[in-house]
């Protein structure tokens, strides 16, 4: 078995994954490996199904074909209770933070502990304060989620994601819509949490600069396929036109500026059919 060998140093391996939504193929036979203890980034333009990939890894969606192994277990063949046990060892940081809006910051971080452990309240308090201290928000424990800035929500969500000391964290667009300071804070946090806690991290992002700064390995996806992979340096020097366009942000290239349409002049000159 390929997976039993590769699961030694790969925490997650995606094999020949195909997934479509309606008639649109999101992934077309892709295979990816995520090494233990490393930060691996999935990059690609918006709408390439990066978030979908995280949901597939977390077992929230089912692939049409192919399989995903997390820590040697085939995610989509697990029974419900086994899947839930696996998820307890995964942390996921949603783009929106996904904090529970009817609870304080403290209760949000305490939520997984209260749901999954029978620890006494005093112990939960200590743990929560430690997690909040790690993300620098111990002082914000009594605030409600709607009183937090976008960057702060993400940090609280991160504290919640590490509450059960997971083996892996999945980050969904952690840098989108952040000001430079909170961006810097998040980049620093992701890197240091990964190293200090010995986590494995998967970052889904289209932010080229900051992601390259912390990722150990990068996959570039486009239209359901892997168009480039390698260390950040290798990606920078990739001779693939597509990867170059993505990394430099050129307006036109393999990805066209224009949405497919008929000829411009014809379109202007035609009488214009009314619908």
């Amino acid at each position: 078995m390929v997976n039993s060998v590769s699961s030694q140093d790969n925490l997650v391996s995606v094999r020949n994954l195909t997934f479509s939504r309606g008639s649109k193929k999101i992934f077309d036979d892709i295979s990816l490996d995520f090494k233990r203890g490393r930060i691996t980034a999935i990059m690609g333009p918006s709408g390439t199904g990066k978030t979908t990939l995280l949901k597939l890894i977390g077992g929230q969606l089912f692939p049409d074909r192919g399989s995903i192994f997390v820590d040697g277990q085939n995610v989509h063949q697990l029974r419900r209770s086994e899947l839930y046990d696996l998820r307890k060892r995964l942390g996921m940081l949603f783009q929106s933070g996904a904090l529970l809006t009817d609870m304080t910051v403290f209760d949000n971080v305490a939520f997984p502990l209260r749901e999954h452990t029978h620890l006494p309240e005093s112990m939960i308090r200590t743990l929560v304060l430690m997690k909040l201290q790690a993300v620098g928000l111990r002082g914000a424990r009594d605030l409600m989620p709607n009183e937090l800035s976008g960057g702060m929500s993400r940090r609280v969500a991160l504290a919640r994601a590490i509450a059960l000391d997971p083996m892996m964290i999945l980050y969904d667009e952690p840098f989108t819509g952040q000001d430079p300071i909170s961006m810097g804070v998040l980049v620093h946090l992701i890197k240091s949490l990964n190293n200090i806690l010995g986590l494995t991290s998967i970052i889904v992002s289209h932010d080229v600069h900051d992601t390259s700064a912390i990722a150990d390995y990068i996959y570039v996806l486009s239209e359901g396929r892997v168009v480039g992979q390698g260390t950040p340096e290798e990606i920078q020097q990739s001779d693939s036109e597509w990867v170059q366009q993505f990394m430099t942000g050129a307006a036109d290239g393999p990805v066209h500026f224009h949405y497919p349409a008929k000829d411009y002049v014809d379109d202007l000159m035609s009488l214009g059919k009314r619908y």
Partner: protein
Amino acid sequence: MSQFIQDLGKSTRTSFTKLGRSTYFLLQTISGIFSVLPRPRLLLNQMYSVGVLSFLIITISGLFVGMVLGLQGYYTLSDFGAEETLGVMVAASLVRELGPVVSALLFAGRAGSALTAEIGLMKATEQLSGMEMMAVDPVKRIISPRFLAGLISMPLLAGLFSAVGIIGGQIIGSGLLGVDEGAYWSQMQASIDFHDDIINGFIKSIVFGFVTSWIALFEGYDAIPTSEGVSRATTRTVVNSAFSILGLDFILTALMFGDH
């Protein structure tokens, strides 16, 4: 013509799929109730927002409905010189029909719409998805406590509605129109049957609570996670609940009082 048949088939299929999903959802919700029981705190919080917060609207509406019944009943009954039986008329209308039905309609508008919007927005902001990823079943943690709270609150609210209504009828009947207070209460006591009237009304309100909570929670859970989707789901909750309540009321009444 073929277009029409296609559309008909499509919409039939859509509604049956939805019925299937909602039934599955209901089964999950009910089986989730067992994990709510050891955690009464979850239930109490929901009892507060579903039940206690509906207190005011139920009390005020009950009072006015009772007062109107007192007025209308008095004018009709006094034509026959039977105004002494006003208490019976007010109490029977409230306990059998208006209590369960009107309070369920109010409950759907007040608590049902709030539940749909809350669940729908939790879905839209990925809170439900986030919970799943934290290995917490959102149906057990979020839906079942709310369902149980609705099921318990509805008969209590209906009872409150009827009780306040009867007092409202008494205020108007004997306070304003001069029906003898003793007659108001004693006629009521003599004529209202515990089994036929009170238990049947109670059963109705449990059924309405069940259906309304189910509709409200399912619509929220099934909502398209956008602002438009949530707004449409909220509307559907109120409309579908109202239809179900009124339709079921007819069926239940026919079953309960049909052989008299």
